[in-house]
């Protein structure tokens, strides 16, 4: 199954109240690939994601899904194509994993329609894909952070959308669970061709897992393209205001950003020794 749905932003301007967060932004999400949006805090990356799922109406410009403005699509029709996992979803007290995942079937059900075999099959597939089948009868609030995030992803999977947007899916997870979640998303992308768009705050994980990297700075697109084209020392300086060295990650072949702080940095050979090497020798 390959996704042919296209998602794009056209001259998009977004803001809250008086404040403009994103200005005149053009963006094309490559279908069937993993896109990661990176940028400093408050650069508008989550706001952009919210507009793409029409949680936020644009000031001007539009978000186009298959050439149609998402703000004009019927809610359920959009929810059958485009899924979203917000940053901090709320699990009702005591709800079981299976029930929560089942909520993902909402866009496929009418007001009076009964639960179908197809709904059960979608829930089972989502549990299996996220390896949460054994947890099905457990209460969500007793799970670990990593398990819980897998369950939320399962809910989004039960929605069976060809596009899946995630707002910082690895926040609050320890490093092994971060990798677990990103591996899972990569599996989905490879097995089903699901187009994935995620906001990530970890630049190195973004460069490692994304096929397409989008760097935002102050509400504007700084660069978009393959990680090795986008993640450069210049880019890190502009987007994060940080001096860095970018090397090739020996494990993945992707670019790896090494920040140059004021401390604990070895002087490269040939460079003049400044006062950076303070401290007792």
């Amino acid at each position, binding site marked *: *199954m390959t996704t042919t749905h296209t998602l794009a932003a056209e001259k998009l301007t977004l803001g809250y109240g008086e404040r403009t967060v994103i200005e005149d932004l053009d963006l094309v999400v490559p279908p069937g690939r993993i896109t990661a949006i990176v940028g400093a805090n408050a650069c508008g990356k989550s706001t952009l994601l*919210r507009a793409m*799922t*029409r*949680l936020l109406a644009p000031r001007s410009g539009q978000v186009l899904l298959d050439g149609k403005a998402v703000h004009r699509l019927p*809610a*359920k*029709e*959009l*929810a*059958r194509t*485009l*899924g*979203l*996992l*917000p940053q*901090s*979803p*709320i*699990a*009702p*007290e*005591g*709800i*079981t994993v*299976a*029930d*929560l995942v*089942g*909520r*993902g079937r*909402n*866009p496929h*059900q009418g*007001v*009076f329609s009964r*639960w179908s*075999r*197809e709904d*059960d*099959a*979608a*829930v*089972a*597939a989502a*549990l*299996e894909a996220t390896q949460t*089948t054994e947890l*099905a*009868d457990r*209460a969500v609030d007793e799970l670990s952070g990593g398990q819980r995030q897998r369950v939320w992803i399962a809910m*989004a999977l039960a*929605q*069976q959308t060809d596009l899946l947007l995630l707002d910082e899916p690895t926040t609050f997870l320890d490093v092994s669970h971060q990798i677990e979640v990103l591996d899972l998303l990569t599996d989905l992308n490879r097995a*089903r061709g699901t187009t994935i768009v995620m906001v990530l705050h970890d630049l190195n994980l973004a460069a490692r897992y994304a096929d397409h990297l989008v760097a935002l700075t102050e509400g504007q697109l700084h660069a978009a393209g393959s990680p090795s084209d986008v993640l450069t020392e210049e880019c890190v300086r502009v987007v994060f205001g940080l001096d860095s060295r970018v090397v090739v990650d020996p494990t993945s072949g992707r670019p790896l950003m090494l920040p140059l702080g004021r401390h604990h940095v070895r002087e490269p050979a040939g460079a003049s020794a400044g006062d950076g090497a303070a401290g007792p020798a």
Partner: protein
Amino acid sequence: MTAVVAPATIDAVARGRVRRAARRRSVIAVLAVLVVVAFAVTLMVGRTFYPPGDVLRVVLGQEVPGASFTVGRLRLPRAVLAVVAGLAFGLAGVTFQTMLRNPLASPDVIGITSGASAAAAFAIVVLGWSGSAVSVTAIVAALGVAMAIYGLAFKDGVVGTRLILIGIGVAAMSRSLISWVLSEAGAWDFAEALRWLTGSLNGTTWEATVPALVALLVLGPLLLACARQLAALQLGDDTASALGIRVDRTRVVVIVAAVGLLAFATAACGPIAFVSFLAGPIAARIVGPHGSLLLPAALVGALLVLVADLVGQFALGTRYPVGVVTGVLGAPYLIYLIVRTNRAGGSL
């Protein structure tokens, strides 16, 4: 895509779902039976006891000497209003609690019910109105209070805690308004005062019952049809929206329907204390976190009102209005919730 899943896994998922649904259905069935029993007992007992056969004949419209008046004219409207008001309060309460994701956000805690009561008391005691004019006054006031609380609590989205604190203030204001209305009216009697302060079924007539019954028949099914949207709203507005729910529209429909139910019931019997507040949590305790709580909470509400009215009338020597009994039940639970919240770390 679903073809890769083993049928056994799908069956396991289906079995779990059916098992959880079965539990909910059996709880609903048991609650419904208990409501019918309590309703029947309300019709049978009183100063004179009438056996089930007599009561049934009166309900079916036959003439039974003595029983036709006592049961048909006195007890039946009272019992019907107890069920209608209980269903309405329970349904409206759990709707607010679910939508705002907080058991303290029930309409009797945040002042919507007492707003309706103040308006109804004003219309009846001061203006001398009756019937549907009172209901309309109550619903307009309740909607106004709901909008005022929402407006006051709104700042970059509604935060539950702020809404509840503002609501508690509004509730206090409404209650002082009720006291003022009652003290201004020349010939006010104690029973009438208690009705508007805590709720009472004493002296219920068909004239008062019918508007509440009609409101329940119209708005009750509407709310039940919104069960799935409400369940999605529990996951947070963003998630609900991503699941294809029109969050704002759902909220408006649900608030108007729930407030309407409350206002019509309140116009008939006053704000029966804490029924809205208690029904949802009790239903949640019995049903567990499986599926919508709307119907179970409505039935728990009806049962609470029926049983509390029986207790108030016959168990305590003096005849107390139903709201006094439910108030005694509800207040400790409110304290428990606040204490538990404080222990859990502050925010409500």
